[in-house]
């Protein structure tokens, strides 16, 4: 048994070497073995470790069947602490972050938070409803361009443009969602990919409206308004959020609202309907879930969150251009969702920080970022499809069947 497993592992490592060595070893025509073998060693170590852990656990399982994983145990330990301390502590940390960090760190923090809010939005579509959307960044683009165009042509403020952006994003979500309602899995993925590219190409080619590849610039930052009574009547003083800490607090508020919104949705009737669709669409439909509307709603709400993030992004940079919305960006957001654990909110927050902040720390490895993202995606799916911090429902779904079997086995013995 072990020998068979070992042979499997060896074959796997052999094919992994075929994949990794040429991709990392060559630079133009010269061969730099060190880099390739180092990477290969890291992957082999992960796989061997995984193998050892599995073998070890299998050995123990016969004695103690209900062993919990360390993530579960850590989660339980955290849950024992009153919630006000853990969440309050996190919020306090997030609030005090700009006081201790320099501008560069705050900028990275803002990028992290933007991606986290995108990840949370995509989580609705992919995590809860189980529809693989590869064109999610298109909604982000819709939000960014809506704010840019409204601000530049009509002079609308950020707050006035935001609802319009959200509505436009939701409409786009429905437009993309509608033709895909009948499709499942792979076809859906490729169609959303196509839609995402169409949006980018339209933005790129429609010179008269979007200024094409040059992009739009000169948008006003989001503003706060204070009543001012000094000169007789009531006037409003406008305070533009230009500094990085101010923008940081704004996106933090957006992320907190997104988290609350996604959580409420997750626990609502709609959330349960999404999960029912993800598990088995036919069964959901037969149980009376209006699948068409619920799926459209998933697209529309996911798009709404992305649209908010996009409007903030355009307002923060005061510049936008179609090349911010490449297919790769969709992949990064998807990678955040996958790494964190499909359907898991804390997972997405952690994954957002890992995937966006850590590459900033290792600036020298910038080129390896996307390579690592790809590798992480495949590795996660092969080794731990439920993600770093699995959503409780999803965990039950993936490991539940084994446990039931085990329990059935236990009871039959007694």
């Amino acid at each position: 048994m072990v020998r068979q497993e070992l042979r499997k592992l060896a074959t796997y490592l052999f094919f992994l070497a075929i994949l990794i060595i040429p991709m990392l070893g060559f630079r133009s025509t010269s061969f730099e073995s060190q880099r390739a073998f180092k990477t290969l060693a890291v992957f082999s170590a992960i796989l061997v470790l995984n193998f050892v852990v599995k073998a070890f656990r299998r050995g123990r399982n016969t004695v103690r069947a209900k062993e919990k994983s360390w993530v579960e145990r850590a989660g339980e330990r955290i849950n024992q602490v009153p919630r006000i301390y853990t969440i309050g502590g996190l919020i306090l940390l997030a609030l005090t972050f700009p006081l201790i960090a320099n501008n560069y760190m705050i900028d990275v923090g803002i990028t992290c938070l933007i991606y986290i809010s995108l990840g949370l939005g995509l989580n609705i579509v992919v995590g809860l409803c189980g529809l693989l959307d590869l064109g999610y960044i298109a909604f982000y683009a819709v939000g960014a361009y809506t704010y840019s165009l409204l601000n530049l042509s009509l002079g609308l403020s950020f707050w006035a443009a935001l609802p319009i952006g959200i509505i436009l994003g939701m409409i786009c979500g429905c437009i993309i969602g509608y033709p895909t309602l009948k499709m499942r899995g792979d076809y859906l993925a490729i169609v959303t990919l196509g839609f995402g590219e169409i949006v980018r190409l339209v933005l790129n080619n429609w010179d008269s409206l979007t200024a094409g590849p040059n992009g739009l610039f000169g948008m006003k930052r989001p503003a706060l308004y204070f009543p001012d009574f000094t000169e007789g009547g009531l006037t409003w003083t406008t305070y533009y959020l230009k500094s990085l800490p101010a923008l940081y607090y704004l996106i933090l508020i957006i992320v907190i609202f997104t988290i609350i919104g996604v959580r409420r949705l997750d626990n609502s009737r709609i959330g349960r309907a999404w999960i029912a669709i993800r598990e088995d669409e036919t069964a959901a439909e037969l149980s009376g879930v209006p699948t068409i509307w619920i799926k459209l709603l998933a697209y529309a709400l996911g798009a709404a969150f992305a649209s908010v993030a996009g409007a903030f992004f355009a307002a923060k940079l005061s510049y936008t251009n179609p090349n911010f919305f490449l297919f790769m960006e969709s992949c990064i957001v998807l990678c955040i969702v996958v790494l964190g654990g499909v359907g898991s909110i804390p997972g997405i927050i952690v994954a957002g920080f890992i995937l966006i902040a850590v590459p900033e720390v290792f600036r020298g490895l910038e080129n390896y970022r996307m390579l690592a993202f790809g590798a992480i995606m495949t590795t996660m799916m092969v080794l731990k499809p439920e993600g770093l911090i699995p959503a409780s429902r999803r965990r039950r779904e993936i490991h539940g069947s084994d446990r039931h079997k085990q329990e059935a086995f236990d009871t039959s013995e007694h």
Partner: protein
Amino acid sequence: MDMTAILLQQMVNAIFLGSIYALIALGYTMVYGIIELINFAHGELFTAGAFIGVIVLTALQQIGWVESHFVLTLFITFGLAMAYVAVLGVAVEHVAYKPLRNSSRLSALLSALGMSIFLSNGMMLSQGVSDRPYPQVFGLDAIEIFGARITNGQIFIVLLAIALMVGLQLFVHRTRLGKAMRATAQNRTMARMLGINIDQTIRITFMIGPALGAAAGVMVGLHYGAVRFDMGFIFMIKAFAAAILGGIGSIPGAMLGGLIIGTIEVGWAAFLPSAWKDVTTFTVLIMVLYFKPSGLLGESSSEARV
């Protein structure tokens, strides 16, 4: 040039482009037919083929074989590119798809996507971000037919593409392995019960499909004169559109779909604003999936897979 010459010229271009799309589409269709998974990494395998082609061809040019042993040079280039990519295809299958064969559709798709990102960035790191020039081995000799110019390279490429497709058709329909492949595509469980080695059949599919893609990669390089690490993406979407249009899982369908997509693209670029030609292809893809997801030549059973 008068109108007929222009039309004829565009038709030549369409057939040329269409046969390249068809070759790539075959890889998708075969893999999808057998494991019902979009091989997202197929576009990158195609690019890898193109890169092997440029490396081998440059080396052979330096030792002067392009002039002295022209046919042998082409043979070696295509052979090595196809062989290497076949191995790479099997590696991708073993590393990313095989462990997920029984898990959910979403996991397998994400794994495939991860592989695609990994390969495309791996090629960027190892081969550079800029265009890699391809040695121009065919020169500029061309035949003129009613005013339309057909270069020698185009003729060679189209003939080779047709030969490969005919070869594939014969392989799938006349050999034991081909029969095993068809059986596995129809019903994997039943095929296993009848003693077909499923793993081996899937592995062979992952050799042939990517190898055809690699041949297409070398052809693209030879014709356009340059390759880039990210060119696989756009070819992937178009070839996929071709595979869907023809009916996924159907080999003649992929050929027909490739020709139609090639014609649409060339026609659009010739007579309408060419910046929008990619938008047209994507729109065609979405329309086909919406109105006739089984494709032109697909079996009706593929409706169930949508």
